[in-house]
């Protein structure tokens, strides 16, 4: 892999972000809107409902982390779709640019975008609801890293599917993370699910991250068990995603889909 080629992909998407208002909306608007909505909803629920202390923090912490996870997965797939929509893939892949460099560039762009969204959402949570995420960050960071790794694995897998099935399935870019919401247990503990669904939830790195986050906010400290379970599952999902992508990319080249992307 060559740094200058990864840099070229980063620059291409930074230019796009500067000129495409949709990408600004994706990066800042939705994370902020999520926090505003969940903040109001949490305040409403706590008014005279006898909910445990720290409920608002848990809701906002969960909303911020979920937004980060969702944005990362969506941005990965959408960055690829941008090149698909403007029929730029032939231009890119008729250069020495390797697909691994292309994906690496997109990952860097996604991390930058997620950081911007995270900062914006955290600022609103602090200003509007007095929820300051920063003191919690040292304990949150391992869970956030797991969320981003899982989002990366999903993003790679979805990008692979779009390579193969083209824009016919592009809606997955925006919706796939949503499918995992119920079993990710963002706003409720895994124990509140029916038993059979709990078994599925424990296979999700997201569920482990949100359980860990709740432990931290409840004052139980950092849970290595949830972190290592999440990390172990991520290794499996990431390996599967990379294998799947490599296989499906070759399939797309064999079928000539790389030059017929629409």
């Amino acid at each position, binding site marked *: 892999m060559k740094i200058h080629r990864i840099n*070229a992909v980063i620059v*291409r998407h930074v230019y796009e972000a500067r000129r495409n208002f949709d990408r600004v909306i994706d990066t800042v608007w939705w994370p902020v809107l999520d926090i505003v909505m969940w903040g109001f909803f949490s305040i409403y629920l706590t008014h005279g409902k006898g909910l445990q202390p720290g409920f608002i923090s848990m809701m906002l912490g969960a909303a911020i982390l979920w937004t980060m996870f969702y944005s990362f997965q969506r941005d990965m797939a959408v960055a690829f779709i941008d090149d698909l929509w*403007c029929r730029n893939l*032939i*231009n890119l892949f008729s*250069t*020495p640019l390797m697909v691994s460099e292309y994906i690496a560039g997109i990952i860097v762009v996604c991390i930058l975008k997620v950081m911007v969204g995270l900062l914006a959402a955290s600022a609103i949570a602090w200003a509007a609801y007095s929820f300051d995420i920063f003191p919690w960050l040292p304990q949150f960071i391992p869970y956030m890293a797991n969320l981003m790794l899982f989002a990366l694995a999903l993003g790679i897998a979805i990008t692979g599917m779009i390579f193969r099935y083209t824009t016919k399935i592009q809606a997955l870019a925006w919706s796939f993370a949503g499918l995992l919401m119920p079993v990710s247990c963002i706003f409720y503990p895994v124990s509140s699910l029916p038993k059979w669904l709990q078994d599925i939830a424990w296979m999700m790195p997201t569920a482990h991250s949100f359980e860990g986050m709740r432990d931290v906010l409840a004052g139980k400290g950092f849970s290595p068990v949830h972190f290592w379970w999440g990390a172990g599952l991520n290794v499996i999902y990431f390996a599967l995603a990379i294998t799947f992508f490599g296989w499906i990319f070759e399939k797309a080249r064999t*079928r*000539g889909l790389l*030059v017929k992307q629409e």
Partner: protein
Amino acid sequence: MLVKVENLTKTFGEFHAVDDVSFGIEPGEIIGMLGPNGAGKTTTIHMILGLITATSGRISIFGKSMATERGEILEQMNFTSPYVAFPFRLTVLENLMVFARIYNLRKPRARIDELLERFGITKLRDKAIARLSSGENTRVGLCKAFMNDPRLLLLDEPTAYLDPEIAWQVKNALLDAQREKGTTILYTSHNMDEVERMCKRIIFLHHGKVIATGSPIEITQAILEEEREEPALEEVFLRVVRGKAA
């Protein structure tokens, strides 16, 4: 031999898009690839670029195998076609800067300015691609194609959408590159006069097969099956399309 294509075949299910095609290109040669729509020209170019995996056959460029040394080969070649596009919100300069970075140019801005001037689009530098005409877009593609000063250039109908004056400028730029730097060019076009003027040698494809190779006059005589003093590629083309050859 700069390019060597041996027994190249590409099938999509039962359909043979390219069928046992073999040819070679000498350094510094401008070679034309002709054939009706669906003859397999673009698929052949895409296989040479490694964008499509061949069903069978071998491609070697600069003495290296495309199957195993694609990255190294692509450093020294380039491609353009008016049928591919650039991110349309980005300006001409931004788009070209991306490719300048891919090729790791030392002075990208100077190179881009030089190319914009060569193809007469300096004034479009800060315009978004979305605001360009088809002909202007084609010229941006040509700037991209010359970005890395390629030893081998694959051009898929490079003068489509261009008015005669601009097409003439582009043809001269290609001939200059070939004369001054020895650039080897594989060229497809539906403009027979252009091919006659540009190419010393032609590969004629039909239904995925090579039906004739040689100079324009040799192709004319081979397909029309009669002695001619001048090339008549348009007549050849019509003969092939109407099914009186191959």
